[in-house]
């Protein structure tokens, strides 16, 4: 009798298991369908289309891109300034995260809020704010002139303009990721190093940075991927040539009406982003396993 009771009690659970599995599948079906329909299918079609030459396939368009000096200059310019602004944003946010990890009180709360502020400001606002601040007769120039410094030449139409804007725009994400990473390092782990004679530099180099490897890779990937494909900031700031790939692709597609060439440019950009994306996925997967 008790055995029957147990069997009866467990029966509904056994029967409902397949339905629960089906319900789970139904829940993820919509987003998976969206990703397939709106991302994977068009991307695959674009990648495939970029290799289409007449009735067959070939790499002619890619060879043409790599042979074109202007296209290569744009690619180099994009990768270089993306890397430069990503590394700078990471360095800045590491300093901020260190401060936030070891400081308490009102000032730390204000710094935290300020470091997250760009998260809520659209790129177009950031760009125009920088134009108004750094541009000719902008606030920065006026401030310099107030203290007697004249001859200011605005950097907003040089690569430094978008470089500053990229850092400003991407600062919150690495600050969040690195602050979370630093909270995983216990106080006693840091105190043990201090206690054994280590100064601040050695603690950062030997205790904190090695334990922040994963958050640093994740932050790097997030900032790099957000910057390399950006359009608004490099459209409004920086020199007319060379161009960031985002602007170049849009111009090739829109102004020049050459969708095939735009597809090649996009696939090349996608390939670079995919490398960083794969590093990100591998890091996340390793973290999941551990």
């Amino acid at each position, binding site marked *: 009798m008790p055995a029957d009771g147990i069997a009866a009690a467990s029966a509904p659970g056994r029967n409902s298991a397949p339905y629960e599995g089906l319900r789970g599948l139904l829940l993820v079906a919509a987003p998976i369908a969206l990703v397939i329909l709106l991302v994977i299918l068009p991307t695959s079609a674009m990648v495939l289309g970029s290799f289409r030459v007449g009735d067959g396939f070939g790499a002619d368009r890619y060879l043409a891109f790599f042979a074109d000096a202007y296209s290569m200059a744009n690619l180099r310019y994009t990768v270089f300034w993306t890397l430069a602004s990503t590394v700078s944003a990471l360095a800045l946010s590491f300093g901020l995260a260190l401060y936030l990890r070891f400081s308490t009180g009102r000032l730390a709360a204000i710094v935290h809020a300020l470091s997250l502020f760009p998260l809520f400001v659209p790129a177009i606002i950031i760009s125009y704010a920088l134009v108004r601040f750094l541009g000719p007769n902008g606030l920065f120039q006026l401030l310099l002139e107030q203290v007697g410094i004249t001859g200011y030449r605005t950097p907003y139409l040089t690569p430094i303009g978008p470089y500053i804007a990229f850092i400003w725009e991407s600062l919150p994400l690495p600050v969040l990721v690195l602050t979370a990473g630093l909270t995983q390092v*216990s106080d*006693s*782990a840091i*105190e*043990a*190093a*201090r*206690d*054994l*004679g*280590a*100064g601040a530099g*050695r603690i950062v180099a*030997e*205790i904190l940075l*090695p*334990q922040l490897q994963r958050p640093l890779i994740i932050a790097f990937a997030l900032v790099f991927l957000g910057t390399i494909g950006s359009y608004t900031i490099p459209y409004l700031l920086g020199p007319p040539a060379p161009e960031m790939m985002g602007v170049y692709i849009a111009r090739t597609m829109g102004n020049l009406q050459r969708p095939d060439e735009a597809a090649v440019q996009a696939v090349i950009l996608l390939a670079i982003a995919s490398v960083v994306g794969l590093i990100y996925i591998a890091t996340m997967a390793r973290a999941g396993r551990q």
Partner: protein
Amino acid sequence: MLRLTDVGKSFGGAQAVAAASFSVVEGELVCLLGPSGCGKSTLLRMIAGLTEPDTGVIEIAGQDVTTLPANRRPTAMVFQSHALWNHMTVERNVSFGLRVRGLPRTEIADRVAAALDLVGLSRFGSRRPAELSGGQAQRVALARCLVVQPKVLLMDEPFSALDAHLRANLREELKALQRRLTLTVIFVTHDQEEAMELADRIVVMDSGRIEQIGRPNELYLEPQSLTVARFIGQTNICETTIAGGRADWFGARLLTQCADGPATILSRPEDLVPASNGAPARVDRVTDLGPMLRLHLTTDDGGQLVWLCPRSSAPQTGSRVSLVPGRLQVYRNGERIGTAEAARPSTAHARTLA
């Protein structure tokens, strides 16, 4: 080797440590003992330089280190959570302090090998801390401190997260090591048994104040305050009044030299002896401790007593007995004021009544 003079620390108006003063000689193992939040860890951190004292002076080997940062003090600390760095091998963990000091690579290797050998982990150098058991991790943490040859070794409840058996083993190992290397050690614990077993002297703390400093047997036999008496070992407490050199102890009469007035009389469970003129009581419960039995009794006037009794002469549950304290201490306003003895002691036979 170490001298503290009026060392104090407050956190936001709350006094964590109040004017602590004591000295530790070379080769001595001193335990800071007290309940959670009594200020013992704060005091240890001030010696280490991890917390800055508000007042007082800390001297190590004759040098004033009060304002020196932790990384410039001749101390090394074993943390409760062992605080090993998981991204380094055991060897790298142990060699850290030597690398910081810029010693030659060969000397580092020799000293690390010797330190790991000392704690019995010679073959574990290439492992990661995550691959070690709790006891092994604490041994590595100890080796990491010993390798830098600190003048004072500080230990903040290092064994509290380990199981009882392992804790007892590590205590024995530490004591042997401390004697062999003549280490000067300050050991923080809330476990009075651990302190009694390890310490040459114990500093008992409560609410940020040092209650008493003494050898373990001094603290146990003659606690200077009720707080110390209650914290170290089990006690039978009797609130009574002294009048004309006499006092009542659960119905038994005591004689004392202490002045008249209210008093608290403490006696240890193992100091109770059967006597015909003792306090009459009934055995409520018997706990078998192996070599001894612990008897929980209720006296006829409603008092509670605990009696540690040899197995051979232990009465049964429900039996009636009559007991007097063979040794006792008298306290007034929390401070020890003297002793007392049972009137007309008669300890020849146990009087088991039913």
